C-alpha cells in the first residue's frame, strides 16, 4: 500500500495549481475551473486522510463538496450568462465598474 | 419653593434634553415656537438652579441632592448625581449662560433659529450632566455627548473655515477623551482587582490605588483629555478656530462653558483620582499653565481677528485656572473656581458684544473697525466694562479669582506667583489695545449706520454686568459654599497621598508652608 500522504501531496498540488490559475487567468470560466481544481485538491486530501484514519467522514464530506461544487458552478454560470448578456465579455478584468 | 425632596438634579438635566428633543421633533413648526420654547426651558432651568442655590447647605462638604439609581448593574454603572460646592457654581453659570446665549442669539441666527436653540439646549443638558455626574461612566457619557451639539453649532452656522474648525474640534477633543475612556476602564478594573466590586461610582473609585506602572499612562490619558478640553497649551489650537468660526455669539458662549468642563474635571476627577500624579507632576503642569498664560497673552496681542483675540485670551486665562488648581492649596482652588465663573461671564459677555458688532459690521477684522464709540456709546460702555473685568480690575469678578490664584501660587513658589501676576500686565495691554483699536480713534463714515444697542441687547448685557459686579464685590457668596468642598477635596487627596507614603520631599499638598527666605534667595 502506498503511503496515503503522497495522494495528499497531489491534492495539495492540484489545489495550488487552482490558486495559481485563479490569480493569473482572466477568463471567468477558467477561473471557475480553477475553483474546481481547488475543490478536487481538497477532495483528494479528504480521501487520503480517510484512508489514513479509517473513518468515513472524509468521504462523506467529499460527496457533499461535490454537490456544493455543482450548485456553485450552476449559480456562477448563470451569473456568467447574465454578465455576458450585459457586456459580451468574459474577461474578469473588464468587470471593474465597481471600484474605489 | 421647597425643592429638597425633588429629584432636582435630574430635572435640571432632563428638562433641556426634553426641550431639545421636542424642538428636533417638530422641525416643520415655525421658528418662533422653538425659540420661545427654548428660552422658556432655559429660563425655568435658571430658576430651578437658583432654587437649588438657595436650598444648598453651605456648611456641608458632601454631595447634596444626591440621586442614585442603577443604570447598567452589570457594569456597576449607576445613574448617580450630586452637587457640592465645586459644581454648584458650575451649574449656576451654565444655566445662566445658556439663558443668556439664547437671549443674545434671539435675532442673530438667521437660518433655522429653532434648530440652533435645540442644540444649545442639548449642550445645556450635557454640560449640566458633566457637572452633576457622580459616576465616572455617566460623566464620560455627558463628556462625549457634549461634542455633538458643539460640532453642529460650529459646523452648521459657522464661518467660511468651519470645516477645518470642526475637524480640529473632533480630532483634538475626541482623541483626548477616547484615550481617557481606556484609562477609565483600566481604573475600573484596577478597582475591581482590589475590592472585588465593579463600580464606576466616583467616590468609591477615589479609593483605588493605582499600581505604579500604570500611573503614568493613565494619569497622562486623563490629563490629556482634560487638558485638551481646558485647553492647555499645546493642546489649545482647536479653540481659536472653534471660537472664530462660530459666528453666533451664543454658540461661542457655550464654547466658553465647554472649556470650563476641562478645568472642572481636573478638580473633580483628576486631583482625587491621581493625587500622587498631581503632586509629583504639579511643577510640570504649573509650568505648562504658566506657559499657557503667557503664550495666550502674547498671541492675543497680535491678533487682528477680534474673536481669535478673545479666544487666545481665554487660553491665557485658562492657564491661570489650571495654575490655581495645580498649586494644590485652598486659595488656588477657590480662585480657580471663581475664575471659571468670572471668565464665563466676562469673556462670554465680550463674545456677545463681538456678536453685536459683527451683526452691524459684518466683519471680525479689527482693522476694519475703529471709532465705534461715536455711534455706539452704550455698547462701548458695556464693552469697556467687560474688558476691564477681563483685565482684572478689583471690584469686578475676575480680580477675586485672579488674586486668590496668585496668592495660592505665590505661597507654593514665589516664582509661580511672580510669573502669573506679571502676565496680568500683558493682559491689560492687549485687551485695552484691542478696545482702543475697536472703539477709539476717528470714526469712519460707514459706522454711522451702526445703531446702538436695542433694548433686548441692553438687557442681555446688563444681567452679566450685574453679576460681574456682584461677584466682584461680594464673592463671599461663592467662597463660603466652595470652601468646605474644596478643603474636603484637598484633605482627601492628602490622605490618599499619606497612604501611599510618598516621599516627604515631594510637594505636600494642602499645607503649603514655605520658608520665604529660602525661596526669595533662590529668586535672587
Amino acid at each position: 500500500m502506498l503511503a496515503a500522504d503522497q495522494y495528499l501531496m497531489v491534492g495539495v498540488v492540484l489545489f495550488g495549481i487552482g490558486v495559481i490559475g485563479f490569480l493569473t487567468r482572466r477568463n471567468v470560466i477558467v477561473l471557475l475551473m480553477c475553483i474546481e481544481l481547488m475543490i478536487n485538491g481538497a477532495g483528494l486530501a479528504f480521501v487520503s486522510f480517510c484512508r489514513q484514519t479509517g473513518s468515513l467522514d472524509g468521504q462523506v464530506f467529499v460527496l457533499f463538496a461535490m454537490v456544493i461544487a455543482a450548485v456553485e458552478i450552476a449559480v456562477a454560470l448563470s451569473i456568467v450568462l447574465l454578465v455576458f448578456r450585459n457586456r459580451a465579455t468574459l474577461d474578469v478584468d473588464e468587470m471593474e465598474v465597481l471600484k474605489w | 419653593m421647597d425643592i429638597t425632596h425633588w429629584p432636582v438634579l435630574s430635572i435640571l438635566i432632563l428638562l433641556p434634553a426634553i426641550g431639545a428633543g421636542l424642538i428636533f421633533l417638530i422641525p416643520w413648526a415655525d421658528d418662533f415656537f422653538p425659540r420661545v420654547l427654548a428660552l422658556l426651558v432655559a429660563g425655568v432651568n435658571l430658576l430651578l438652579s437658583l432654587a437649588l442655590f438657595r436650598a444648598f447647605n453651605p456648611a456641608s462638604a458632601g454631595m447634596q441632592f444626591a440621586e442614585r439609581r442603577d443604570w447598567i448593574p452589570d457594569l456597576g454603572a449607576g445613574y448617580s448625581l450630586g452637587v457640592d460646592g465645586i459644581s454648584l457654581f458650575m451649574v449656576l453659570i451654565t444655566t445662566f449662560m445658556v439663558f443668556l446665549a439664547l437671549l443674545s442669539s434671539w435675532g442673530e441666527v438667521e437660518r433655522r433659529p429653532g434648530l440652533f436653540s435645540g442644540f444649545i439646549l442639548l449642550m445645556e443638558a450635557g454640560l449640566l450632566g458633566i457637572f452633576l455626574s457622580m459616576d465616572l461612566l455617566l460623566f464620560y457619557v455627558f463628556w462625549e455627548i457634549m461634542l455633538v451639539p458643539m460640532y453642529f453649532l460650529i459646523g452648521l452656522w459657522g464661518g467660511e473655515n468651519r470645516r477645518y474648525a470642526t475637524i480640529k474640534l473632533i480630532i483634538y477633543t475626541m482623541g483626548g477623551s477616547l484615550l481617557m475612556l481606556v484609562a477609565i476602564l483600566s481604573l475600573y478594573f484596577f478597582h475591581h482587582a482590589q475590592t472585588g466590586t465593579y463600580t464606576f461610582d466616583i467616590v468609591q473609585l477615589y479609593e483605588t490605588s493605582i499600581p505604579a506602572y500604570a500611573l503614568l499612562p493613565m494619569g497622562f490619558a486623563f490629563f490629556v483629555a482634560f487638558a485638551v478640553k481646558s485647553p492647555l497649551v499645546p493642546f489649545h489650537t482647536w479653540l481659536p478656530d472653534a471660537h472664530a468660526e462660530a459666528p453666533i455669539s451664543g454658540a461661542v458662549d457655550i464654547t466658553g462653558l465647554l472649556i470650563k468642563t476641562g478645568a472642572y474635571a481636573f478638580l473633580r476627577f483628576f486631583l482625587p483620582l491621581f493625587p500622587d500624579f498631581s503632586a509629583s507632576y504639579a511643577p510640570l503642569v504649573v509650568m505648562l499653565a504658566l506657559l499657557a498664560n503667557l503664550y495666550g497673552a502674547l498671541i492675543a496681542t497680535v491678533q487682528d481677528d477680534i474673536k481669535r483675540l478673545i479666544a487666545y485670551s481665554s487660553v491665557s486665562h485658562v492657564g491661570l485656572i489650571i495654575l490655581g488648581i495645580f498649586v494644590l492649596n485652598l486659595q488656588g482652588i477657590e480662585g480657580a473656581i471663581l475664575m471659571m465663573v468670572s471668565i464665563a461671564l466676562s469673556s462670554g459677555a465680550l463674545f456677545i458684544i463681538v456678536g453685536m458688532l459683527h451683526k452691524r459690521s459684518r466683519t471680525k477684522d479689527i482693522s476694519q473697525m475703529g471709532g465705534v464709540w461715536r455711534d455706539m456709546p452704550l455698547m462701548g460702555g458695556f464693552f469697556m466694562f467687560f474688558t476691564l473685568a477681563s483685565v482684572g480690575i478689583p471690584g469686578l469678578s475676575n480680580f477675586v479669582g485672579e488674586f486668590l490664584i496668585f496668592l495660592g501660587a505665590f505661597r507654593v513658589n514665589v516664582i509661580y506667583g511672580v510669573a502669573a501676576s506679571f502676565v496680568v500686565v500683558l493682559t491689560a495691554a492687549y485687551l485695552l489695545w484691542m478696545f482702543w483699536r475697536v472703539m477709539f480713534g476717528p470714526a469712519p463714515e460707514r459706522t454711522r449706520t451702526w445703531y446702538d444697542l436695542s433694548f433686548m441687547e441692553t438687557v442681555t448685557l446688563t444681567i452679566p454686568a450685574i453679576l460681574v459686579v456682584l461677584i466682584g464685590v461680594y464673592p463671599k457668596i461663592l467662597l463660603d459654599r466652595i470652601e468646605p468642598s474644596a478643603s474636603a477635596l484637598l484633605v482627601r487627596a492628602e490622605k490618599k497621598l499619606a497612604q501611599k507614603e510618598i516621599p516627604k520631599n515631594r510637594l505636600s499638598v494642602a499645607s503649603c508652608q514655605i520658608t520665604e527666605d529660602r525661596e526669595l534667595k533662590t529668586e535672587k
Partner: protein
Amino acid sequence: MVEATGLFSKLWLVPALPLAGALFNCLLGRQVSNFVVSIVACGSIGLAAVLSLLLFNSFLKLPVEQRHIELCMYNWIPSGDFSAPIDLLLDPLSMVMITMVSGVSFLIHVYSVGYMSRDESFARYFFYLNLFVFFMLLLVLAGNFLVLYIGWEGVGTCSYLLISFLYHKQSAARAGLKAFVVTRFGDFFFTLGIMLVFVQFKSIYFGEVLPRAHEVLTPVMATWIALLIFGGAVGKSAQVPLHTWLPDAMEAPTPVSALIHAATMVTAGVYLVARCYPIFQLSPTAMSTVAVIGLLTAVISATIALVNNDIKRILAYSTVSQLGHMFIGLGVGAPAAAIFHLLTHAFAKALLFLGAGAVIHALHEEMDIRRMGALKGHIPATFWTFLVGALAMAGIPGLAGFFSKDAILEASFTNGGVLLWLIMVVTAGLTAFYCFRLFFNAFLGEKRWDPHVEEVHHPAPVMTIPLMLLAVLAAVGGYMGVPHALGGADRISSFLAPVFPPAHHTDGGGDSSRLGIMLMTVSSMVAMLGIILAYYFYVSPEGREAPGRLRQTLSGVYDFLSNGWYFDKIYQVVFVDRFMGAANFFWQAVDTSVLDMTVRGLAGLVLGGGEIVPRLQTGLVRWYALFMVAGAVVIMGYLYIF
C-alpha cells in the same frame, strides 16, 4: 484701635456718596439734563467734603491715642486662612488725605461744570470723575492692603478712562493705554508686595501688619516688601523710570489733569509709602532707594520741563518733579514733610492746572505756550490766581509751597547730606524758572495767538470761583505746617506723628533752627533767581534773544531734553518692539506653524496614508484574490517560519 461710633460710624458715607453720584450719572446721566448731572456730581462730592470736615472736627477732639478708627464693612474675600474684609481706617494720615481729596475734588468738579459744559459726554465725564473720587477716597481710607489695592486699581482705571475721554483722538487712546499699562507694571510689584506681606504676617490689615513689622520681618524681607510696594508707588506716582505715562496723560481734559494727574491720584504712591512707613524704616536700603529714585525723578523731569512748550506738559513734568521731592522727603525720613508737601502741592498744582485750563479754554484749545501771550488783560482773574499758584510752586516765602518744600529740604540736608540738598536747591531754582517761563509766556509779552483766535473765551464764574478758592488755599495752606524755626508749631507733623514712628532726627534744636533759617534763605534766593532769569528770558526786551541763542549753543542738550531724555524711544525699542516681535514670533512660528502644522500633518498623514486605499481597491477580482492568498501566506508564515 477704636470702634467706630457716633459720627465715625458714618465714615463709609465719605466714599459712598461719590459712588452714589457716579452710579446715578452712569445709569441715568443720559436721561437727565446736564444741570441735574452737575448738581448730583458736585453735590455728592460736596457732601463728602463737608462730611470729611465734620469728621476732621470730631477727630481733632479725640485724644491722640484714640485717633485710629477702623470700620469693618463686611468680609470681602475669605479663603482659608486668608481673609480680606472691606474695612476703612481713619487715622491722622487718612484724615488729612480725605479732607484734601474731597475738598480739591469738589472744587475741580465745580470748575468742570463750566469747563465741560459744551461736551456731549457730559454725564459720562462726571460719572468717571465721581467714580474716581470714590476710588481715591477708598484708597486713602483703606484699612488693609487689598482694599487699598481696590482703590489703587480703581483710580488707575478711572485715570485711563479719563485720559481716553476724547475717544476720537488716537493720541488720547494711546496715552490712556500707556498710562494704564505702565502703572499696571508698577502694580505688578505692588501685588507681589501684598502677597509677600500676607505670607509673612498671615494678615494684610494695616493695624496688624505695621505695628508688628519690626518683630516679624528680617531686614532682607523688609527690604523686599518695601521695594515691591515702592514699585507700585513708582508706577502710580510716575517716578523714573515709569514716569513716561504722565506727560502723555495730559490728553485728558484739563480738570482731570488737575485732579488726577496733579492733586490726587499721582500722590497715591506717596501716600502708600507713607502708609507703609514702618516697613520702610526697617530697611535702609529701601529708604535710600526711595530717596534716590525721588531725586532722579525730580532732576530729570525738572530739566525736561525747562524746554517743553506744551502748557500742560510743563505742568505735568513739574508734577513729576514735585512728586520726586515728596519721595525724597520720604526717603530721608521726613514722611510728615512729604505729606505736607503733598497737600500744598495739591492745592498749588490743582490751581495751576485749572488756570492752564482757563487759558486753554480762552484760546480755543491752544496748548502751545509759544502761541499765547498777553492774556493778562483778557482774563485777569486767571492771571492773578495763576500767579499765586506759580509763586507757591516756585517756593516763594510765605506761600504754601515754601513751607513744605523747605521742610523736605531741611530733612534732606540733615539726613541726606549737602550734595542731596544742593541738587534739590538747584532743582528748586529750575522749578521756579519753568513755572515762570510758562507764566510769562502765557500772560505777558505780546500776542502770539493763532490767527483764527479772534476773541478769547472768558471763563464763567463756576470756573473762576474754584480758582480763587484754590488760590487762597495755595497761599495760606502752608500755615498748617510753619516750622519751629520760624516760630510755628508745625502742626501737621505733630498731627501725623501717631502714624509715623519717631523719626531718627531730632526736631528743631536751637542750632537746627538757625540752620533751618539759613537753608530757607538760600533756597528762596535760588527760587527768586529762577524767576528773575525767566523774566529776563521771556519778558524783558534785552533777553528776548537769549533762549534762542542758548538753544543753538546747546542744541545737543536741547534735543536730549526735549525728547524727554529719550525714555520713550528706548522703551519703544527695548520693550514694545521686542514684545511685539516675540508675540508675532509665537503666533506665526509656534502657533500657526509648529502646533497647527502638527495637527495638519497628522491629519495629512492619515489622509495621505489613506490614499493607498483607493489604489488597492482596483475593482479587479484577481487582485482581491491575490490579497487573500497573500494574507494566507503571511498567516502561515507567522505560524511556521520555515
